[in-house]
């Protein structure tokens, strides 16, 4: 039986590969991944690393991947924030707040994401006035149909010292946290945490300032001719995609959070109340930690969905991996097989990586010393 299945699958594969070979030969399509080192020759309107038209297709892949990661990472952050707030609001004793959260959830999760992306992009952001009549917030932040321009800190020479100080602070944070946890477990007393951290921060940044002075300059955008100069320009494609992804996924996360909180035994809340914990503290220390165990697995799949959904960028030409690779590169090189394969592999590895990380976290959150 197994041999038969295996033979059938292998046979089908041989047949398909044969077809592919004869088709490729007939249509004169190159094969192999040589194109990755060839000159790309097209521009990309948002790059996190230096990129010019003369760079290779390989670099295009990296640029696209970073853009995907940027929009997914920020999307996950905002969706989680909004989703948790909505989920808690949905369970609020206040009737009005609970109903508002419900209406939000029912509207946003029942309308296709692509429609929402297009609504924000073509319906709202591209309908904004031109840069000359841009909406401005305090003459520092401008919104126009070319995107949003924000003031930005321009880092000069020596900014590296501040980076080192930041790393030192992070290390100090983790060391202090371990120390306090250990002290709490062995002696039961809380030790100081925030005050030494503050002292450390002052010392580190003071040292950095002594070494390098203040190598930062505020870069405020200004209207020059038909567009803005200076500042940080956020392209409208990015804003539309980020907005739609966060608002859409937040609705799903809210439902997950609600189910998670509901799954915590009512007795836990009552016990917390009997111990005299205020409702807020009970939610933070008693209910949420237990709810998280139920919440995390479906939350992981929502994060993965968001990352995969960011591929809808191709519809509004935000330069994510699918858009630059399966869109522009494919139309220039024509090697559908290799390009789709690379795109799929990138998403597969992202998925596997995320679920691995979340599983690790999940193991740590699971019951410790469960006797039942």
């Amino acid at each position, binding site marked *: 039986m197994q041999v038969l299945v295996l033979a059938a699958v292998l046979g089908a594969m041989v047949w398909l590969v044969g077809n592919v070979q004869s088709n490729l030969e007939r249509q004169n399509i190159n094969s192999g991944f040589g194109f990755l080192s060839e000159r790309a020759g097209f521009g990309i309107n948002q790059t996190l690393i230096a990129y010019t038209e003369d760079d290779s297709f390989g670099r295009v892949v990296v640029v696209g991947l970073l853009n995907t990661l940027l929009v997914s990472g920020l999307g996950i952050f905002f969706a989680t924030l909004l989703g948790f707030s909505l989920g808690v609001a949905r369970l609020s004793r*206040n009737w009005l707040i609970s109903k508002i959260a419900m209406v939000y959830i029912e509207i946003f999760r029942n309308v296709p994401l692509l*429609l929402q992306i297009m609504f924000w992009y073509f319906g709202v952001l591209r309908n904004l006035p031109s840069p000359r009549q841009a909406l401005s917030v305090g003459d520092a932040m401008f919104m126009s149909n070319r995107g949003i321009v924000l003031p930005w800190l321009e880092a000069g020479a020596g900014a590296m010292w501040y980076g080192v100080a930041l790393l030192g602070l992070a290390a100090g944070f983790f060391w202090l946290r371990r120390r306090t946890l250990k002290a709490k477990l062995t002696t039961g007393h809380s030790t100081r945490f925030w005050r030494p951290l503050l002292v450390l921060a002052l010392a580190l940044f003071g040292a950095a300032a002594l070494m390098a002075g203040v190598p930062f300059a505020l870069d405020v955008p200004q209207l020059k001719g038909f567009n803005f100069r200076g500042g940080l320009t956020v392209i409208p494609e990015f804003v539309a995609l980020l907005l739609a992804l966060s608002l859409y996924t937040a609705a799903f996360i809210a439902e997950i959070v609600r189910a998670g909180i509901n799954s915590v035994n009512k007795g836990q809340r009552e016990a917390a109340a009997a111990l005299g914990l205020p409702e807020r503290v009970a939610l933070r220390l008693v209910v949420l930690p237990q709810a998280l165990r139920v919440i995390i697995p479906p939350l992981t799949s929502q994060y993965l969905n968001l990352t995969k959904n960011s591929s809808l960028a191709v519809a509004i030409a935000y330069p994510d991996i699918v858009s630059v690779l399966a869109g522009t590169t494919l139309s220039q090189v024509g090697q559908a097989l290799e390009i789709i394969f690379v795109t799929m592999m990138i998403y597969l590895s992202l998925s596997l990586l995320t679920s691995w990380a979340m599983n690790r976290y999940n193991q740590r959150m699971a019951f410790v010393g469960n006797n039942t």
Partner: protein
Amino acid sequence: MSAKTWIPTPARPAPANTVGFVGWARENLFATKLDSALTLVCAALIIYLLDVVFGWAIVDASFSGEDRNACLKQVQGACWPFIDAKLGQFIYGRYPEMERWRVDWVFALGLIGLVPLLMPKVGFKRANVIFMLGFYPLFAFFMLTGGRFGLAPVDTSDWGGLLVTLVVAVTGIVGSLPLGILLALGRRSELPIVRALCVGFIEIFRGVPLITVLFMASVMLPLFLPDGVNFDKLMRCLIGVALFASAYMAEVVRGGLQAIPKGQYEAAAALGLGYWKTTRLIILPQALKLVIPGIVNTFIGLFKDTTLVLIVGLFDLLGIVQLHFTDSTWATPETHITGYAFAAFVFWVFCFAMSRYSIFMEKHLSTDPNQ
């Protein structure tokens, strides 16, 4: 001395501020100072939003007119005449106007078959399923494509709008069900090679976005087929969507299979039933019934995902709305928003109805006595 009956004084009514609307409001809206403040802020927000939406959709909107001039007022809300003028296109796409009755028949017959199927109380389920899975697809196929029985052929490139949305979603779900069941059975199989193949297929398709699968179907599929064999674009998308959906369906069905107690397998084995008979007669009927809500939820996701076919050049409802924005007779600043609002409303009605149905079935199928 006559017997005295003790007549209790009637209970005093509850304090006025704890019953009726006032009591309800005190409890649910103004329980604490913070609650009162939040309630007032929310109420203000709701009134503002309602004012904006109502003003845009009704007060400042245009309702009749032949072209863009109807929608160029100083303060312009929605441009409903645009929807009115294009409604035929939004439902049928470029399907020839003379032949649209064929689409109507397919819609109507589908509805007639589907409604009793969805109501748990109505009988004839077996006959209905045979009708919907056996006769109806053939009927719909010949009616829509034509070219036989004296019907004029209609090329699939002329299909569009809601028709394409429904065709892609329904074919996707119907096609993915048998494949998903096989994959789910394969994943729980004891044969390692079969299991590995099924796990690989499921995890690969669940790990990549639908859009890459559609790209694959539209640019790679022609490469995989021998010279001269080719499907049209709609067919290629349908294959891609069905493969993609089957991976999700497999996981839903697996959930149902896992919920079947071991005793059912053992009882079937004790009766002398083999693997296929056990699966077909004992396990699947119970498991599939359990996962009806899951199937409906997968269908909702798929229904929303059908909009992606516009990226590979088919015109579903959203695609056709998007296409008609370029029509210069209707080019106004409000056309985009009006079109999106219409499309969003149609999708929302479908998805919301289905999600309510899924909740209803969940309650209906639940054997938990506490609910």
